[in-house]
């Protein structure tokens, strides 16, 4: 079967959007589902995390964050010089691609699960850690030269942001309560996860379809970037995974994280911190192209690459 069934929900949503159906997922359902997904991912990560010694993790986390920081630093000059985008736009798009997409990560986990492929439990920790450095870098890139401004506000915006609070909070609860303690919550947070993800993807399909106009205005350069950048990110992820000796599953997930572009945390943070940037460009690229690209082609490709290279090097 080429597609995870959850991806069919994305396609259904996109199709409904394109034929201008009156299907609308209420905004509140979107918010509720995203709270659910963030918490559930955090909880699962926390339970897994309890199995690893923290020391071992610290080093790996440092490497993953450092390598991840390369992504916005690569993306920015490409966008600004090659793409001739204004500095604010280049910086904002770089931040979106440096940060990560929680839903893409969830689909990749689901993909691995469907293949019976396991992955290091602490990948969720990486997900959390990768969410914000790129946002900081993006803001710094946008503001270089200009007055420094209110970093404390920005830091608060990011760290007290909904997605970090729910991911980190879930992680902490899962870690404290452990697998046994969480058992009575499994029926909601774990058993229903994939179904909830399916409905969320239906909505993302609708939203992505409504971004087609933005994309058309953005032009070919950005469309190309939105396909090429994930490939660069994925390659970096597989290389880093090999370096750290991750499993095939872990490599696939890290490649997916690097390849994915944020469309939950990043748009919110950039809109406030870099208001001159046009959100149509960054969201159009991240959600209209990179997200479906990763879902449909990227994840299977990264998995294939991980299998192949793991066989060669490990």
């Amino acid at each position: 079967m080429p597609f995870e069934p959850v991806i069919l929900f994305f396609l259904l949503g996109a199709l409904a959007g394109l034929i201008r159906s009156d299907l609308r997922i209420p905004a509140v359902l979107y918010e509720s589902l995203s709270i659910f997904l963030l918490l559930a991912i955090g909880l699962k990560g926390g339970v897994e995390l309890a199995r690893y010694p923290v020391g071992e993790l610290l080093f790996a986390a440092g490497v993953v964050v450092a390598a991840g920081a390369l992504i916005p630093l690569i993306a920015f000059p490409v966008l600004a010089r090659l793409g001739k985008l204004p500095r604010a736009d280049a910086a904002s798009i770089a931040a979106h691609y440096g940060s990560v997409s929680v839903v893409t990560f969830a689909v990749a986990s689901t993909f691995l699960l469907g293949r019976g492929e396991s992955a290091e439990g602490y990948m969720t920790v990486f997900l959390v850690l990768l969410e914000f450095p790129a946002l900081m870098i993006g803001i710094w890139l946008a503001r270089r030269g200009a007055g420094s401004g209110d970093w404390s506000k920005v830091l608060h915006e990011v760290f007290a942001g909904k997605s970090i609070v729910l991911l980190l909070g879930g992680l902490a609860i899962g870690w404290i309560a452990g697998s046994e303690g969480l058992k009575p919550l499994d029926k909601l947070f774990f058993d229903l996860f994939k179904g909830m993800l399916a409905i969320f993807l239906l909505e993302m399909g609708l939203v992505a379809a409504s971004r087609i106009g933005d994309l058309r205005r953005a032009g070919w350069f950005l469309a190309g970037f939105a396909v090429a950048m994930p490939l660069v990110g994925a390659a970096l992820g597989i290389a880093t995974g090999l370096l750290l000796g991750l499993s095939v599953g872990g490599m696939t997930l890290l490649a997916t994280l690097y390849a994915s572009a944020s469309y939950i945390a990043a748009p919110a943070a950039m809109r406030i911190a870099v208001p001159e940037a046009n959100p149509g460009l960054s969201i159009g690229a991240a959600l209209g192209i990179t997200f479906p690209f990763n879902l449909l082609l990227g994840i299977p490709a990264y998995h294939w690459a991980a299998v192949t290279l793991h066989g060669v090097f490990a």
Partner: protein
Amino acid sequence: MNRPLQTRKLLTIVCEAALEKRLEKELPGFGAHGYTISDARGSGAHGRRDAAWPASANIRVEVLCDEAVAEAVVRHLEAQYFSSYQLVVFLSDVQVLRAEKF
């Protein structure tokens, strides 16, 4: 009526939901003693905002205040937000009781 009605300004701002927290912090600084917010969607020069997800949601903010405060807020919005954010601002005259409240 028992207490007389007096004229005040009703300042209405329709803008991206992303500005909500920021406006809530800033408004008191210009002398506004309160505000009312509701959720909205819409369309304008920057295209359609259908409120399907947070990035495309609007809010509608109303501030009852005296003319000086209204002017200060409008000037601030003009300087700070008009160039980068999607927003629309309009003023009207309304009659209020307890005008000292506003």
